[in-house]
C-alpha cells in the first residue's frame, strides 16, 4: 500500500490513501455488487498520481482525510445544480483549458493572464485542511495548489487595494444552473486584503494528488479554511482589487443570513439553524456530530486579523 511520506504530516494520522480510495468499493464487494468503473482500482491508486511528489506545505493539519468519493460527490455548485450529487455529472462539459484570469482594479499589473503562466510562477504544495460548510457539515481535503497571497503579490496591488474580489465564470450555456435565479449570477466572493494575504488562504488547482475535478471548482478555486465554504469560490475568471467592500453573492441574497466575513463560529447561529456542531462527511450514521471550533480550528493563526471586532455583529 502507498504510504505517504511528506515532511510535516504523520502518515499514521491520516487515512491511508489506498483505503480512502477504496472504502466504498470494499463495502460494495462485500455486498456482492459489481465494482464501479468510476473508482480507480488499487493498482492505479498505487501508480504515480500526478501530484504525488508535491511537497506538503505549512499549516497542513494532521486530520483524517475524507474519502475522495464523498468529497467529489457532495458539492454545492449552484452554477450547475442545487443538488450536491448532480453537479458531478452536469459539470463534465465545462471546458477548463485554456483558461484565462482577468486582473482588474487597484494593482500595477492588470489585464488577462493565462492560467499556465500563473502556475509557472507559483510552485505547488499540498495543504490538508478541514472544510466547514455553512450547512453544518465538514470534510477534510488534501488540496494541491499555492498560497493566494503570493499569487496576488505578483500583480502588485497598490495601497488603495483594501479588498480582493473574485468572480466565477458566467456561461449559462454550460453552467445550466445559471439559467435560473437561485443566485444573482455571476457568483462573486471577496476577502479583506489582509485576509487574502494571510498564509492560510489558498488557491487550489488540485486535490487528492490529481487535478481539481470540475464539480469541485476546476481549474482553480479559493480555499479559505477558517471561513464557511461559500467563501471558497470556484472556477475563478476574474480578480479585482478594490478600495470598497464588494457585494458578494450569498450576502446579496440574504444579508441577515450570510455575512461578508462568514468566519466559522459556533457561537453565532445562522438565523435558521445552529452552528454549534457539524456532520462529518462519510461518517457512519451512528457517529455523533463533532463540535464546531471557532475559526474552524484555525484561531491560533487567524484570530489576530479580527482583534477588536465584534464577531457577533460582523458575522
Amino acid at each position, binding site marked *: 500500500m502507498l504510504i505517504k511520506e511528506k515532511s510535516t504530516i504523520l502518515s499514521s494520522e491520516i487515512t491511508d490513501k489506498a483505503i480512502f480510495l477504496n472504502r466504498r468499493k470494499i463495502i*460494495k464487494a462485500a*455486498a456482492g*455488487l459489481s465494482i464501479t468503473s468510476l473508482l480507480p482500482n488499487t493498482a492505479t491508486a498505487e501508480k504515480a498520481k500526478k501530484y504525488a511528489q508535491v511537497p506538503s506545505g505549512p499549516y497542513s493539519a494532521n486530520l483524517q482525510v475524507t474519502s475522495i468519493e*464523498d468529497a467529489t460527490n457532495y458539492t454545492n455548485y449552484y452554477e450547475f445544480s442545487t443538488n450536491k450529487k448532480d453537479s458531478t455529472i452536469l459539470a463534465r462539459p465545462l471546458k477548463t483549458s485554456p483558461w484565462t484570469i482577468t486582473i482588474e482594479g487597484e494593482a500595477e499589473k492588470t489585464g488577462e493572464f493565462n492560467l499556465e503562466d500563473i502556475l509557472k510562477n507559483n510552485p505547488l504544495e499540498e495543504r490538508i485542511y478541514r472544510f466547514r460548510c455553512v450547512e453544518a457539515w465538514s*470534510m477534510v481535503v488534501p488540496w494541491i495548489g499555492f498560497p493566494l497571497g503570493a499569487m496576488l503579490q505578483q500583480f502588485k496591488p497598490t495601497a488603495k487595494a483594501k479588498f480582493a474580489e473574485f468572480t466565477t465564470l458566467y456561461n449559462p450555456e454550460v453552467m445550466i444552473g445559471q439559467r435560473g435565479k437561485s443566485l444573482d449570477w455571476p457568483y462573486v466572493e471577496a476577502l479583506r486584503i489582509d485576509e487574502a494575504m494571510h498564509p492560510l488562504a489558498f488557491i487550489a488547482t488540485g486535490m487528492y494528488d490529481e487535478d481539481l475535478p470540475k464539480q469541485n471548482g476546476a481549474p482553480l478555486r479559493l480555499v479559505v479554511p477558517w471561513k464557511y465554504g461559500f467563501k471558497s469560490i470556484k472556477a475563478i475568471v476574474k480578480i479585482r482589487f478594490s478600495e470598497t467592500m464588494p457585494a458578494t453573492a450569498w450576502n446579496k441574497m440574504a444579508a441577515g443570513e450570510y455575512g461578508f466575513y462568514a468566519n466559522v463560529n459556533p457561537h453565532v447561529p445562522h438565523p435558521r*439553524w*445552529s452552528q454549534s456542531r457539524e456532520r462529518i462527511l462519510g461518517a457512519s450514521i451512528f457517529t455523533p*456530530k463533532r463540535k464546531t471550533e471557532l475559526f474552524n480550528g484555525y484561531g491560533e493563526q487567524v484570530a489576530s486579523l479580527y482583534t477588536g471586532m465584534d464577531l457577533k455583529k460582523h458575522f
Partner: protein
Amino acid sequence: MHLSRTHWVVIKISIFLLSLTPFLLLVNDTLRDQLGANPVETLHFTLGDWALRFLCITLALTPLRKLLQQSWPIRFRRMMGLFAYFYASLHFLVYILLDLSLSWTHFIDEVPQSPYILVGLLTFLLLTPLALSSSKTIQKRLGKHWLQLHKLVYIAGISAITHYLWLVKSDISEPLFYSAVMSILLGTRLILYFKKTT
C-alpha cells in the same frame, strides 16, 4: 364498483406494500452504505419527503370522492394517513436519535434557534392525536368530535409546508410545488365550505 371482499383485501395489501417500499429501499441503502456522503441527511430528507407526499395523498382522497362521486377513495384514507404518520415518525426519530444523539443539551442548544425545526415538531405533534384516534372503535366512541379533531390535519398540512419552505436555502421550487398541491387540496375544502354556508 362491485368488488368482492377478497378483491378489496388484495388491493389493500398491494397498496400497503407499495406504500412501504420507500422505507424498504432506505433500509436496503443503509445496509449497503449507499446513502452517499451524508447518510443521516439522506435518511432525514427522504423520510420527510415521503411524510409530506402521504399527507398530500391523504388529503386528496376526500376531494377525489366528491369528484368521482364514488366512495372507494375513503377506504384508503386511514391507511394513507397512517403511512404519513409512519414516515413523519421516522423523520422525527432520525432527527432525535442520529442528529441530536438523544441529547437534551443539544436539543436545548439547537432547537429553539431553528424556527423551521419548531414548526416541524408542531406538525408532528398535530398528527399524533390523529394517528392515535384512527381506529374504528375510537372513531365511533368520539362520534362527531372525531371529525372536529381530524380537522387538525389542515393545520398540519400548512405547517408541514411552512417547515419545508423555511429550511431551503435558495432554490424553493420543490417546496413551492408542494405548496401548490396543498393549496389546491385545502382550497377545494374552503370553496365547498363557503358553498355550504351561503
